[in-house]
Structure formats: structure tokens, C-alpha cells
């Protein structure tokens, strides 16, 4: 199957087991028929998945996560696409500084962002609101929206746009008919990556969450702080399955490598 020696394959096997073990364990325990944490040795049961329905705070948190993720990614793109085009297309003083600023949420530990936002929103009277949560997520996902759009815009042949202009297109037509369609794959994957970031964010969100407006990872985290029971494993298993499905779709349509390349910022 490969050009690797047997030693390498043993290493690989152990490595893969290490990587998947915690995920598999969560999924297995979720199917336990028992009332306590255990592997489902006496048959599989869906009882803990059914129990989720009795805890509306999980369902509610799931919807909040979905909304925050979808909307904050769109808002981030509304700001990021023009900025990416400006940075990709123009040479101006302060260009480097500006892109460093726009990427800074990657550099700043999320715990610091959480504290800063908590302080900021408390002072401005927005603390504990949906709007505060939304704005903070826009900032956190902004670098991902920016990077993937930027990559698409820089990879684009400029003369295509010049051709459109020479044929008489004005700025808006140019953007709508030529530029946007050409950078669309980057924009869409930027949205997808931003969504996933927002959906997974916990460190910053935990500072801003309030009863009723907390995201799913925050609800799970706070629940685990109190106690670990099969319920939280079944919730986690659901999240894992949903993520896996999204991952496979993304891989099919866009290529996981490209998305992840944006993820870890390795643009070169």
C-alpha cells in the first residue's frame, strides 16, 4: 500500500489509534445502555440520545451555535471581501500593518479576546446579549474569511479584470459579473471555515455566554465542569457525526487540504 517499511507502518498504526481513540471512545460510550459511564458491552442503546430531548438547553445551544456561526461568517465576509480585494490589488503604505491587524485575532489568545470583549461589552451595556456574541464571533472568524478570499483574489489573473474594464464594465458590474464569480470558491470555503471556527469556539465565548444565549460547546463545557455522564457523550457524539459529515462534503467539493491550508495559515 505504500513505500513505507514495516516499522513505519507500525508507527503509523499506533499514531492513528492515538488520534482516533478519544473520538471513538466518546462515540461508543454514547451508546451505553447503562445509567453510568461505561462501554456498551451489553448491547447498544439509543437511550442517551433520546435523553437529549429532555434537556432543551442543549437543543437551544445547538441552534444558537448554528445561527451565530452562519450569520457571523456572512458578516465577516461582508467586511473581509472588500478588504481582501484592496490588499490583494493595491500597493500602498501601511498595507502590511493593516493585514497584520486584520489577522491579529489569530495571534491573540482567545482567553485574552474573551476578557477584552467581556470588559468592552460590559462598559457599553451590551454584555449578555446576542449582539455581543455575534460581534465577537465576527472578529474571531474574520482572519479565516480574509485569508481564503485573499488567496483567491491574489491567485486571479488581473488581466481578466482589465479585459472586462476595457470592454466597458464599471466598478460594480466588474465586481458582480467577473471578480465575484472568480473568487467565489475562495469566498465559499472562507465561509465554511469561518463557520466551523465559530461553531467550535469555546474559550472566548465562555466569557460572553449568558443563560439562553450560550453556544453548544460552551454548554457542553459548563456541563462537564459539573459532572461527566453519558448524556454529554451522546451530545458530543452528535456533534462529532455532524462535523464528520460536513468534513466529507467539504472534502468532496473543495478539497480538505485547501481548506486546512487556510486553517493553519500556511499560505505559501
Amino acid at each position, binding site marked *: 500500500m505504500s513505500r513505507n517499511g514495516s516499522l513505519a507502518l507500525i508507527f503509523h498504526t499506533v499514531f492513528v489509534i492515538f488520534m482516533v481513540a478519544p473520538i471513538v471512545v466518546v462515540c461508543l460510550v454514547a451508546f451505553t445502555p447503562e445509567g453510568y459511564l461505561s462501554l456498551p458491552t451489553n448491547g447498544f442503546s439509543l437511550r442517551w440520545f433520546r435523553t437529549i430531548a429532555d434537556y432543551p438547553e442543549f437543543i437551544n445551544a445547538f441552534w444558537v451555535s448554528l445561527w451565530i456561526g452562519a450569520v457571523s461568517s456572512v458578516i465577516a465576509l461582508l467586511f473581509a471581501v472588500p478588504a481582501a480585494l484592496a490588499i490583494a490589488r493595491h500597493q500602498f503604505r501601511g498595507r502590511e500593518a493593516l493585514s497584520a491587524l486584520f489577522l491579529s485575532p489569530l495571534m491573540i489568545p482567545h482567553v485574552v479576546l474573551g476578557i477584552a470583549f467581556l470588559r468592552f461589552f460590559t462598559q457599553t451595556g451590551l454584555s449578555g446579549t446576542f449582539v455581543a456574541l455575534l460581534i465577537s464571533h465576527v472578529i474571531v472568524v474574520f482572519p479565516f474569511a480574509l485569508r481564503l478570499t485573499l488567496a483567491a483574489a491574489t491567485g486571479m489573473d488581473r488581466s*481578466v479584470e*482589465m479585459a472586462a474594464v476595457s470592454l466597458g464594465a464599471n466598478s460594480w458590474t466588474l465586481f458582480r459579473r467577473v471578480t465575484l464569480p472568480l473568487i467565489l470558491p475562495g469566498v465559499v470555503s472562507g465561509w465554511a471555515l469561518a463557520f466551523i471556527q465559530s461553531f467550535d469556539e469555546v474559550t472566548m465565548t465562555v466569557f460572553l455566554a449568558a443563560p439562553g444565549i450560550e453556544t453548544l460547546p460552551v454548554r457542553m463545557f459548563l456541563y462537564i465542569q459539573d459532572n461527566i455522564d453519558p448524556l454529554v457523550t451522546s451530545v458530543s457524539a452528535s456533534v462529532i457525526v455532524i462535523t464528520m459529515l460536513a468534513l466529507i462534503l467539504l472534502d468532496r467539493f473543495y478539497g480538505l487540504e485547501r481548506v486546512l491550508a487556510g486553517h493553519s495559515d500556511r499560505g505559501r
Partner: protein
Amino acid sequence: MSFLELNGVCKRFGDHVAVEDINLSVTKGEFISLLGPSGCGKTTTLQMIAGFVDPSAGAICLNGRDLGSVKPSKRGLGIVFQSYALFPHMTAAENIAFGLEMRGVPRAERELRVRDALVMVGLDGYADRHPRRMSGGQQQRVALARALVIKPDVLLLDEPLSNLDAKLREDMQIELRQIQRSIGTTTVLVTHDQTEAMALSDRIVVMSKGRIEQIGTPHETYEKPASAFVSQFLGKTNEFPGEVDRHAASPRLVAGSCHWPAPAGVTGPVTVTVRPEKVGFGGETHNGLKARITNRIFQGNHWLFQCETECGPAIVVRQNTGEAQPTEGENVRLVWRAEDMGVRPRGAGR
């Protein structure tokens, strides 16, 4: 009266001068080429005409109107880019129709004109193809049709053929020339290929380091190069050091062991130039440069000789007419007609 005019156009990037003091006037219907080595400022000049680069100084006029304040989208020029710059998300027909759409041409007329344009470039039947699924030559034709369908005042071509293979390039040259003749659009072509420039243009503008070296018909620029640069850039040239002696009984031009009547207007040390195909072989008694043949290369329709002359190396090209040719190592005399020879003061010409 000139149709497109460039007056003292300059472009500086920082302190790098890309284009310096270009003066050029193109008449209506003319096919003109900007020819020069890489980096000499051809594209920059073209982009200034198109409006994508603002000149640092000078003015560009089209049909008597200063283009300085006209936006690129309002100039009404047709441009074919080196990369073709087709819209990858649109079909061939949609690409061609784009410019008409921008001009608000009604759908019915648009379809008609797109169909005509496709026929003109020999692509009927390819209307619904996307550029990615077309060959280089086909894409090139779509780009040409897209630029021509808007009936531009001027057609600007930036190395449109450089991505094609040699055979296709020749075919497209002929086609391009035919199309341009038949619709009579004023055309500016950028190229670094001298044969392409010669084959297509009414006049050639030879550029070097941002400046114009010479403007003339293909024949003029080849036969009467204005500078050393032009003569070297347009085909191969032999150069020998010589001397114009006005003190002798009759003024004469001496190079090595041969001499000719002195040409007018020059004196002192000179450079003698002669094209390889104008050089012939003569016997010991002829008035010619002493030379020994170091290499004889057969190239199908002609022979190429590398020689070591008394005045330095030289090359000679002879048609393959079937006659016997000198062999390697043979001592010969290189002879040419006085009128085929160029003479310029030594050190002159850049």
C-alpha cells in the same frame, strides 16, 4: 492626419524609468508594432494607451481627443492580452457578448453580432464552449473576437501569439493580418518577435530601454537600421571596424585589406555592417575580406558559414541552390556590394 497620438509620454515607477519620451503618431487603419527586448517598456506603453497605467508625463490623444481624463472603461479600445484573459466562467459566446452588453446592445442584435464574430474567427459551432475546454489557438480567437466585436477605435494586442506553438503562430499571423485588413481597424501590436512584427505591420516601432530607437516600415528598419541596436535586434548583422580616409588621393573607406569609395558624411574610425545573406564568396583577387571558414552548417534551405576574418568573426548565409559551397578550413574572400553595406561612426549608436 494622425488618429492615435502619443506626445512625450513617460512612465516612472519610483525612480525606475520604464518608458521615456515616447512620441508616436498612428494613422487610421494602420497596423503598427512595438518591437523590443523583454522589459523595454512595450507593455507599459500599451497599458498607458489602454488607461490601466497613468503616464507620469505626456499626453495620449485619440481622434483629436485627450484620453487623459477618460476612464479605461470609456475608451472604447479592444484589447487582446497575452494570457487572453477570457472570463473562465462564461462560454465563448458570453465572453464575446460581454462588451456588447456593457454598451446596452439589445439581445437580438447581440446574438447576431456574436454569431458573426464567431464566424469571422472561424469558431462557429463553439459558441457554448467554456474557455477551459478550448485549445490555445481557439482561446486566442475568442479573445480576438471579443475585442473586435465592439468595433473598437483601436485594437491593442499584447503578445497575443506568444503562447502558441510555432506552426499555429504562423497560421494565426496570416489570419490576424487578413482580419485586420478586411475590417480596417487601427491596430497596435506588442511583440518581441521580429519576424512577427515584419510579417504583420505597416510600420515597426523599435524600442530599447524605454526609448524609441527607430520608426519605419519593416523594410526600412531592416535595411537601414538607425542604430547598432536596431541592426542587431532585427536579424543578424556582421560588424567590422574600418576607417574613412579623406587624406588619400581619392577619399576611401578601408577595412582590413579592402577598400571602397568613401561614403558621404562620415570620417575617421567607423563600423561597417553587412547582413549575412548579402555576403558572397570571392576568389583571391577580389576586393574582399580575407577569411577562413571555421564551421559549415547545413540548415535545409540554406547554408550557414562561420568565418574568422582578418577583422574578426563573421557569419555568411547562402541559399541552398545546389551549387558547390566552400568547405571547412578553406580560405576565401568575403565580398559584398557597396550599397548593401552600412557605415556609421565608431562608437555612435547605442
